[in-house]
């Protein structure tokens, strides 16, 4: 498991320095510093994320109460500024909390999460959105086609496009960065990219509509955000794992397929579940089932990935200590 490399020009997987003394773990080579670092925990990630989930739940409740208290003369529509605030607030909370917790616990964080956030936002606006809505005309087709086609279209077209864009950001840009030094950094960077990605998609959605309804529109933005955060968490887990261990060739593709399927399923369920029974007291639409499923899956995915990461890191540490 751990041995000295025979190649005198071997570089560290993380920092890329040519190594005089090479340490190996599952076909990845490390310098002394990064050998002791890659299985460490990224503590600010978990705290900032839990705080952000709390803010999301508070925003849900705030929107529900706000829609009840809003003056009736406003009607249902609220100005775009409110929608943009709902779209931006979770991202601001996460980024600020991440660096604040990092500073407080003296945990050094590079600017790479911010870079991933910006890249995610730019790619969603410049690549994914034009491709899906201007070239493929996906929204028009999904609105007209059958339920089974909508389900398949959401997974194969929506899911894979979104998941691959996020995967590409992490795999082709963050992968070679020395700041990607821990397994959990993979989750953090994918989470940041997906946060930027969803935030700009939501802002563009609000701007395009020129406003939105406080409850239904606001909850739709949160639902969409939860979908992309879940996708980012799954991708981050697989990329973070693969970065520091040589895995079988299907490993990343499995993660990509899983992320795309979950993304497509949540996008589908986020709208399909909101169609409820029409009656004298019900309008046939409720924003709650979709958001409940999305936030439930997000929290479940987060807990699972956090548990798996911590377990794997603990096992790796124990193995390395045993060898030492």
């Amino acid at each position, binding site marked *: 498991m751990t041995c000295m*490399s025979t*190649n005198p*020009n*071997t*570089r*560290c*997987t993380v920092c*890329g320095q*040519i190594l005089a003394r090479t340490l190996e773990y599952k*076909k*990845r*080579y490390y310098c002394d510093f990064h050998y002791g670092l890659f299985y460490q925990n990224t503590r600010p990630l978990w705290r900032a994320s839990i705080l952000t989930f709390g803010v999301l739940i508070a925003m849900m409740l705030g929107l529900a109460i706000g829609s009840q208290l809003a003056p009736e003369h406003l009607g249902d529509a609220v100005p775009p500024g409110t929608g943009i605030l709902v779209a931006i607030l979770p991202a601001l909370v996460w980024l600020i909390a991440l660096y604040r917790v990092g500073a407080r616990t003296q945990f050094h964080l590079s600017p790479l999460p911010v870079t991933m956030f910006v890249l995610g936002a730019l790619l969603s606006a410049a690549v994914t959105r034009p491709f899906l809505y201007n070239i*493929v*005309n*996906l929204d*028009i*087709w999904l*609105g*007209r*086609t*059958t339920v089974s*086609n909508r389900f*398949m*279209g959401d*997974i*194969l*077209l929506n*899911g*894979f*496009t979104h998941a*691959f864009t996020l*995967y590409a950001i992490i*795999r082709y840009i963050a992968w070679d960065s020395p700041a990607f030094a821990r397994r959990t950094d993979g989750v953090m960077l994918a989470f940041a990219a997906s946060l930027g990605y969803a935030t700009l998609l939501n802002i563009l959605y609000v701007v395009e509509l020129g406003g939105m309804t406080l409850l239904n529109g606001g909850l739709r933005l949160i639902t969409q955000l939860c979908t992309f955060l879940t996708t980012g968490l799954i991708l981050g887990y697989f990329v973070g794992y*693969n970065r520091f261990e*040589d*895995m*079988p*060739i*299907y*490993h*990343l*593709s499995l993660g*990509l*397929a899983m992320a*795309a399927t979950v993304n497509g399923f949540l996008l589908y369920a986020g709208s399909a579940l909101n169609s409820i029974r029409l009656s004298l007291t019900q309008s046939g639409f409720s924003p709650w089932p979709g958001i409940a499923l999305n936030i439930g899956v997000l929290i479940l995915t987060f807990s699972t990935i956090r548990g798996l990461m911590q377990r794997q890191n603990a096992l790796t540490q124990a193995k390395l200590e045993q060898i030492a």
Partner: protein
Amino acid sequence: MSQDIWGVDPEPTEIDTGLTQNDRFSAILAVVLTVAALGLGLLIKQRSSTDTWPYESRGAGISANYPVGWLVDERGNYVVRMRDPKARPFKTQYIITIVPMGGQTSTRNVLDGLTLQRSTDLPAYRVLSVQETNSGGVNLTVMNFAFVDADPNPFIQRLPVAVLGIDILIRDEDRAIIITYMSDKQVFEENRPSFDRFLSSLRY
């Protein structure tokens, strides 16, 4: 000499970057998987866009295949009207009408009759062009028109919609078969291939 100037090693050294063969293949596999998924998704989209149901009117001796999910209405002064129930705000529609044509009646008379009738029924109705054409050995007269679809209820809060339409007139012995296609201007060209498939499936 040049090696000394540029500081290049005499022999290239093999540097282990840490990327294994599995890494390289997995990067390719991820791209292949995505392309395959998108291809399959586009195939499903393409197939579902062309999915049709058959329509037959024994009385008029007409049959055609119309898009799946559209609503069929035979209660007006036409043979059939097929409408897309999900189109907003104007419902994309195909209408088949049959007009008797005696020996003295020309296609121009029939189209003028349509124009007069629509100019009273439809706001801002305008004929844009009329042209003779031949498709698959059949002589067709094509009339392009436009009008504004505005809800008569003044309390409905929506902008009027510019609608584009095409009448295709086929002379069939002593009758004229008029196939009309109308759609919101914004999606007129997008929906046109579907209408072309409908037209090519028409039997009379």
